[in-house]
């Protein structure tokens, strides 16, 4: 499992690469990626795959709380925090 810093950096780089217009360094961990349409609903499918790869866990979108993909902070909290706390 990657560290918190590595995961957040991977997320920033993936979002910037997928969006194609925003740079990773211009993206904060509280930038609302859905609300600002930095990531589209269809690109979210790829983001879920990327999160599954990083967390080594299947994600069931029907079980997610609203706002789970709001920003990098929310993504980290929802998909990695518990697993990283258990492994540390």
């Amino acid at each position, binding site marked *: 499992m990657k560290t918190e810093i590595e995961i957040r950096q991977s997320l920033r780089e993936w979002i910037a690469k997928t969006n194609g217009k925003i740079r990773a360094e211009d993206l904060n961990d509280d930038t609302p990626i*859905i609300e600002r349409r930095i990531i*589209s*609903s*269809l690109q*979210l*499918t*790829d983001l*879920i*795959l990327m999160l*599954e*790869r990083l967390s080594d866990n*299947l*994600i*069931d*979108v*029907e079980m997610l709380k609203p706002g789970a993909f709001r920003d990098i902070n929310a993504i980290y909290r929802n998909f990695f925090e518990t697993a990283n706390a258990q492994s540390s």
Partner: protein
Amino acid sequence: MNTFADTVAKLCSVSIRDYINPYSYLNWPETVGFDEWCTSPELISLYGTPVYDSLSTAEQKRLSFYEAINFFSLNIHGEKSLIEGLAQRLYRKGNDVVSPYIHHFLDEENKHMIYFGGFCVRYAGKVYPDRKMVFAREYAPGEEDFLFFAKVLVFEEIVDVYNKRMAKDERIAGIARQINFLHHRDESRHLAFGRLLLKDLFDRYSPTWSAETREGVREYLKNYITTTWKEYYNPAAYKDAGLKDPFDIQEEALRSETTRARRREISTGCIRFLMETGILAEQPQL
């Protein structure tokens, strides 16, 4: 000349004639083994790739089982959102002509989910989760309806190619073959309805859309086709089939020219329709 209403009435009468009880129609075997094909080998997502060629026949058959679970899971998720959308449109103002057929559509889609869910839960004990989400936003007049039925059409047209081929494939387990047959039998009517309705919606509303909306609709639809195809390459199915590095396998398979050619071939009918009607102005990236 047949009107849209005539065609809808004809489709209704065929649905009534072919009505079946989904609980008594199929004889479910106790088990489906890894020693049987559950997906036609040529339709397995990895067919023709170095990874697939490196597997023994037994391993390929195990993969074919999980590919069937993935295919049926995709169908369940597609039909769940279809049922939601159809139910919302039932008896909506302006839908007088299509509402009688929406009743059959709903009934038949529910039956399909009984078959697909029955197979997945009986033999694999699970359905793979859905990865698609839709965000709420504002739409131009007719745009939401158009996009809903366009997505239905893409999903059903691709699925139907698989169904038609596997319904005839004597190599695959009888129950998997029968489910593919039953789905295709109803889908051929849904496809006819979907094509008529989608063209009608496009002709009615697209002239009222701004150039930006029309371009946005086309871009979304192209991306939707690409995303739909990605779901056929499920790392979870590869992992269950015992393959190592399932995410790398998925990425490599999607990049392979062999699989790209297969996606193009299977999508031919769907994309031809979308291009000929002017709904798409250029081919999507497959």
